[in-house]
Every structure is written in structure tokens, then in C-alpha cells.
């Protein structure tokens, strides 16, 4: 179906376009003194939505422990292969050594990361979070390969209630009902 568009009949004065032009000039002139909307980034940061997905970071639990156990699931799931983890056994002398594994190094190549959030989603320990840092810049490629310390610094402490170390660990040997651990295992 065709539609007939009624064209407005213009007067001679209107057909010179001058009224419209003058009106336009007045409009733009009016805007000159008006309030400006420019945000003075980087001094003024934009307010981000809580679910904003910025750079991935590593977090610590409220007691200051690195939560990552180096399971490498994030390394596996990361679509652009931005994550590289070097696992190691947790040193014997730290408290909570019964969580045996931790990352020796944890590298995220921010040039590769696409901020997809898969790592956060897959992490079984809730140790990696996409926080709100979005302006990642550097002068060299190496600078943008964030290592464990940098990631932990960016991540800070995650105030959540995952206390996986809280109730773990072998009970003291003399605790009632504790299994007798004899035998010649070197340590036990």
C-alpha cells in the first residue's frame, strides 16, 4: 500500500528558507552559554555499573590469603589464552598448608584479555574477579603482562563468606575420635 505524504504548503517567505535558517542560528546561539556535558576524564571518572566487567584481577579473602589454588581452569577456559599460571606446592611452613597448591606466578596478558568474564565464572574458588579497571595502558607489551603481585594489588580483598580454610585440616592427634595415625608414612 502506498501512502500519500501530504507536503505542507510553504509560503513565499518560508520558501526562501530564511526563517528556518534564522531559527537554526538562534538555536545554536542559545546553546553557547548552556551547561556543558563534557566529562573531564581522567580527572573525572565515569560512574560504573556494579556489574561492569573491567580487567580481571586476583583477590584475597578477608583474612588476607590468596584464594587462587592454581587449578588452571581459568587458563583453560580463557578464549584468547590470556592467562598463564605456574603452579607450585604451598610451602610447608605457611599456616593452612593443607591447601596444598597455589600459584607461583599468575600472568594475565591484558593485551589479549577480552574482558569476557569466563575466568570469573569458571573459578571454583571465587579467586578471580573482573573489577572495574578499564583503562589499562603501558608503554611496552611486557608492562601489560600483569603478574601475580600486580593482579593481587588490583584485586584487593573480596569481602565474601567463602572460608574454605576455616574448618579444614586434620584435627589434632589427641582430639577425641581422631584416627590413630600409626605406620611408617614419613609425615602424617
Amino acid at each position, binding site marked *: 500500500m502506498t501512502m500519500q505524504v501530504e507536503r505542507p504548503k510553504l509560503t513565499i517567505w518560508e520558501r526562501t528558507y530564511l526563517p528556518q*535558517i534564522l531559527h*537554526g*542560528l538562534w*538555536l*545554536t*546561539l542559545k*546553546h*553557547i*552559554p*548552556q*551547561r*556543558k*556535558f*563534557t566529562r*573531564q576524564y581522567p580527572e573525572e571518572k565515569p560512574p560504573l555499573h556494579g556489574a561492569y566487567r573491567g580487567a580481571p584481577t586476583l583477590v584475597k579473602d578477608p583474612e588476607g590469603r590468596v584464594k587462587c589454588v592454581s587449578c588452571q581452569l581459568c587458563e583453560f577456559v580463557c578464549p584468547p589464552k590470556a592467562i598463564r599460571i605456574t603452579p607450585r606446592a604451598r610451602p610447608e611452613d605457611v599456616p593452612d598448608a593443607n591447601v596444598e597448591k597455589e600459584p607461583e606466578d599468575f600472568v594475565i596478558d591484558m593485551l589479549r584479555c577480552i574482558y569476557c568474564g569466563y575466568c570469573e565464572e569458571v573459578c571454583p574458588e571465587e579467586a578471580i574477579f573482573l573489577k572495574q579497571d578499564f583503562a589499562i595502558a603501558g608503554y611496552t607489551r611486557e608492562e601489560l603482562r600483569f603478574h601475580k603481585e600486580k593482579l593481587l594489588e588490583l584485586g584487593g580483598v573480596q569481602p565474601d563468606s567463602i572460608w574454605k580454610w576455616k574448618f579444614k585440616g586434620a584435627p589434632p592427634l589427641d582430639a577425641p575420635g581422631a584416627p590413630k595415625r600409626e605406620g611408617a608414612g614419613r609425615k602424617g
Partner: protein
Amino acid sequence: MIPLLLIHLIKIACVIGVMLGIVAYTVLAERKICAWMQDRIGPNRVGPFGLLQPVADGLKFIFKEDVLPHHVNKVYFTLAPMIAMIPALITIAVVPWGSQLVIPSVSHDPIPGVIANLNVGILFVFAISSLGVYGIVLAGWSSNSKYPFLGGIRSSAQMISYEVCLGLSVVPVFMQVGSLNLMKVVEYQAQHTWLGFTQPLSCFIFLVSAFAETNRLPFDLPEAEQELVGGYHTEYSSMKFAMFFLGEYAAMFMASALMATLFFGGWSLPFAPFNAPAQTLTVGLIHIGIFLAKVCGFLFFFIWVRWTIPRFRYDQLMTLGWKIFIPLTLLNILISGVVLAVITK
């Protein structure tokens, strides 16, 4: 006493210097004003309020890589930006910036406020400024690629058409003044009334044609970036591009200066002591200030219009020029002639 030649050289240096300075800051003003009109702030990072932005821009242009595409005609390609810029700088020679400067320690006679006090001033302006189109046409042709070529063609047609309007529109002015000397035109206005009031149609057509001649919106069809990428300067970069850019703004300055001179009293204001050639140095300098203020006003108008009115279609442009303005100017000449004949009788 300073030799006359030296005085002339100093005058030339001052005029070119001031003009290029204003041109540079017009670019900044353009960006600032357009930002304000769009409720933005505009450049504000280089220097206080972004006032050093032109310096940054200049440095950037200088340090950019100068790309010379292999398919261009190298000689004309290099020549074109110069040709586009120089006419605007030359024509300013006949425009009176002030009445005269009385500096007895420097010269016995008052120094005229114009570089070359030509009898055929306005003809000189039209003659030289129409050379500007060569720069654009050459750029479009020597670039040897389609968008610059289209831009060049559009530009030649547009500029030649509007030169006719421009030329015809000012005829009544000189009929009224009785001289082609721009100094005389200003003095006439200083003594009588501004020609903008006696010749409003001339004034209007001249103004609109000036937009077309300087390739400014709403008549910037030769560069029309949405359709022609960048028009004639698509292939240009670095300082060569900067020269086109400067040329465009210098032409704008020139157009503003002519508007001020021809229709709005040049250096004069309609009351004493600004309505007669200056007898003291102070008044002479104020005259120059008045002239520049008027020019700046028109530069603002150019910018204002650019950020308000969208681009015309090419056929509209041509219709406006040939079918409306040319008959109107002819009519205007006729009426002016009749009226003048009646009055002087």
C-alpha cells in the same frame, strides 16, 4: 627617518603576522564554538583554556609523515596547496586595516593603513582570489584518484559560478561610492552611512557568495567528507594538508575583511573621532582595532553558520547561484542605477 621601503616591509610583516595569528586562532575558535553549541567544552588541555592548541596543532602538522602517494602527479601535487593558500595572503594587501598612522618620528607623511592603495583595489581582489580555485582544481586533478577529482570538479564549477555573483553583487556599491579604491570606499562610509544599510541586497548576496567562495558550510561541496571522503585534499597529509587548511581560513579572513570594508564601514565607526582619518597615533591604532573587531565578528558568523546549517545539495547550490542570485544582482544594479540617477539629478 626610516626609508619608505622599510616601512612597507614592516607593514607587510605585521599584516601577514596578524593575519596568520588570527587564522590560527580561528581554528581554535571554530573548535571551541562548535563545542559550546553542542554543549561540550572543546579543546582545553594545551595551555590555559586550551589557548596553546594552535601551537600543538602546528607541531603535529610539522611532525606528521608527509605522504606522497606514488600515483600522483608529483609537481602539481606539491604546488597545489601553495597555490590555494597564497592568493588569500596577497589580496589582503589592498584591504585598508586602518585609516592612517601618524608617527612623526618615523615618517613625515602619515602612513596609510593599507599596504597598497590601489585604484582598482576590488578588481585586484577578484583577480587574485579567483586564482585560488587553481589550487583546488590542481589538487583534485594531480591526486589522480576519484574523490579528489570529483571534489576538484565541483569546486571549479562552484567557484566560477559564485565569482559571477560576487562580482555583480558589489557593482552597486561602487556605483554609489564612485571609486574602486577600497580606501575610498571606507572613507565614503565614514562620511555617509554604511553601505550595508543602503545596499542590503548586495550585502546579503555578497555574504552568501563568500560562503560559497570559501568552501564553507553550507556550501562545502568540494570537500563534503560524507560523500567525497575529503574532496580535493583526500590524498594530502602533513604540512601540505595544513596549507589547504590555512588557505581556507585565510580566505575566510579575507572574506570577512571584505565584508567589513565594503558594507560595514571598515575601520570607521559612525561617530567622531572614528569617522575620519586618524590625526593621532592612538586613534589610528583604534581604527585598526575596530577593523579587526569587525573581521572577528564576521569570522564568528562564518563559524556560527557552519555549525548550524546543513550542506546544500549541488543542484540547489547551482540553482541558487545562477537562477536566483545572478538575476537578483542584475536587478539590483538596475535599481541602484535608476535610484542613483534620480538622486544625483
